[in-house]
């Protein structure tokens, strides 16, 4: 296995932990609500899934519980923002701090408990394709789930009536209301669904990839996911590419060193952020998609 392959394989694993919350945040923002608490909802998902996996001896039960924990976390944000008309950014940060504190307290007893990790499953046929098979189709199930979710979110947004209502809510909630819809309900559901995906993203970290819970283990990756969504101009496929790019750059920093190649540390550390930024800015320029109008409005009026 050469270094490029190593970086790509590790990149898909690491990138999935950005992709899942990224897709969730995309759904949420399309409805007009930004959730800076994504980082916190990931932590909630990471701990809840780990704890459940320990108690039920099943990683997949853990994933489901992690998703529920993420949704609850998102539900709180949605309640504050939609029902109580709180400032979106402030509420998101509060959610993050809250989740960080709560998971640190309750997580202490779960550090270094052993869990049955999610098994690595090589997909038959696809996994045998030279090169590509090894990079894309030889991972744990959550990685495949995230692939499927990219397509699912795209389909939901652009090919279903529900998606149309969701996007309309993000653009002009008044219009949705005037046509007999319930924009607040749509927002509530979108935020909870989005945070649920962030919860699964947390599970990918704890029971999926590193087989370990640690307090504040997300280390800012939830914020990276939020940034990826913005730079990806709210498009699912671009979110996928941006997340993977971040993951690959992160893995590359390790692989380059493991090969004994001398590179400036600060360059390596900033690589994931810089590459993702440049790529996404270049990529999203070409597109016509812009910020959902309701999102911009909500943010402007709150400031």
């Amino acid at each position, binding site marked *: 296995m050469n270094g490029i392959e190593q970086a790509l394989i590790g990149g898909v694993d690491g990138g999935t932990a950005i992709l899942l919350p990224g897709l969730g945040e995309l759904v949420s923002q399309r409805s007009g609500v930004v959730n800076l608490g994504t980082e916190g909802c990931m932590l909630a998902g990471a701990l809840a899934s780990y704890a459940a996996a320990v108690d039920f001896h099943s990683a997949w039960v853990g994933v489901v519980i992690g998703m529920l924990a993420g949704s609850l976390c998102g539900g709180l944000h949605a309640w504050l923002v939609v029902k109580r008309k709180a400032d979106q950014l402030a509420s998101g940060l509060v959610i993050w701090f809250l989740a960080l504190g709560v998971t640190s307290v309750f997580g202490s007893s779960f550090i270094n408990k052993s869990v049955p990790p999610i098994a690595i499953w090589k997909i038959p046929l696809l996994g045998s394709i030279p090169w590509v098979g090894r990079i894309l189709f030889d991972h744990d199930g959550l990685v495949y789930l995230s692939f499927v979710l990219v397509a699912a979110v795209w389909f939901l947004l652009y090919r279903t009536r529900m998606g149309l209502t969701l996007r309309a809510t993000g653009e002009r909630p008044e219009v949705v209301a005037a046509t007999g819809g319930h924009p607040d309900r749509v927002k509530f559901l979108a935020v909870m669904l989005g945070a649920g995906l962030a919860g699964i993203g947390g599970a990918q970290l704890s029971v999926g990839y590193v087989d370990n819970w640690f307090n504040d283990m997300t280390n800012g990756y939830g914020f990276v996911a939020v940034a990826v969504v913005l730079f990806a101009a709210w498009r699912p496929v671009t979110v996928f590419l941006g997340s993977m790019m971040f993951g690959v750059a992160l893995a590359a920093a*390790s692989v380059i060193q493991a090969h004994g190649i001398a590179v400036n540390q600060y360059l390596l550390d900033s690589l994931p952020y810089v590459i993702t930024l440049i790529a996404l800015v270049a990529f999203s320029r070409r597109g016509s998609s812009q910020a959902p109008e309701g999102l911009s*409005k909500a943010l402007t009026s709150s400031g």
Partner: protein
Amino acid sequence: MRFKSGYRRLLAIATVVAGLGLAGCSSSPASSSSSSGGTTTVGFIMVGNRDDYGYNQAVYSASQTVQKDLSKVKVITADNIPENDTVTRTMQSMVDSGAKIIFATSYGYYPYALKFAQANPSVYVFHQGGYLNGKFPPNFGTYWGEAFEPVSLGGMAAGAVTKTHKLGFVYAFPISQTIGNIDAFELGAQMTDPSAQTYIVNTSNWCDPLKQKEAAQALLSQGVDVLTQHQDCQATVIEAAKAANAYVVGYHYDAKSLDPSGWLTGSAWNWAPVYENIINAVTGGHFAGSQYNANWVGTFANNDNPLTLASFGTSVDSATQQKILSEEDLLKQPDESVFKGPIYAQDGSVIFPAGTTPTYAQINNLTQLVKGVVGSLPKS
């Protein structure tokens, strides 16, 4: 444009927060009412979680031993305190609740601890792992151990079991302690496997499980079959080694229970005796000018190294154990060191010539990697 400003503000916040990695501010100072009546309040400040199976747990469990052993001491602790001015605020709030002695136990606390000592002459401040070149304030001290001695013993265990002759070292930052540890690990490994090589990868973080996992994976794919680390939390690397049927040499805390067959051995901190000696020196009134009012470094030779050899895992055969234990005995002799010359740098030049034994200060000032280490230190 209303539209743009809101969007930009969001972008700014998201990117700034993500970029700075502004996480981990959950402090939990477990303090209560202040002390009186001959009781001395002692504060311990930790950078990470006190249950990390690593550096911080070693500090925390020692602080609890101190509480048990010394009847006239009241211990208060704070964990998850980042290495910025938060630590100053934490020290102040400890003093406000009666603390007379404060142990600031993370490397990055050093400038804050020194400043705080200078500003508060009635409080005794101790920094774990720092090194002051110059005059000590009468209420300040640093303490550490010759970490590289037990680390070299761990290297011997690694060299004894490796089949690929490739060892992996996951570290955080290229600080002097770490350079000494990497070098000592490789030198120890060469004693049991002359062709052993140590591959190094840094994570730029004391505990980022995602990066630790990426680093471990990168090393394992390179054919490394023994991993070791200089991280505050060690479980992720141990789990990664376990999943790949590789071996692991621990650091900071004895984590054999996580993987008894993959765990070879490691180094574990035993801080309680040091803490107690320092506290007794202060409360006994003979601190100023004592050995603790300086850079105190415990060593094997003085039989007071706070870093000790951890327990052996089931994969280390008794012959290897004997070899390691007799090397430990040898290191207790004066003028013995794993860095006893000749020691060569990666490029073959001589670092310490034959027949010389470097001092702690010389080893602590090492900036070069020894021959056999693959990779280079990031320039800062």
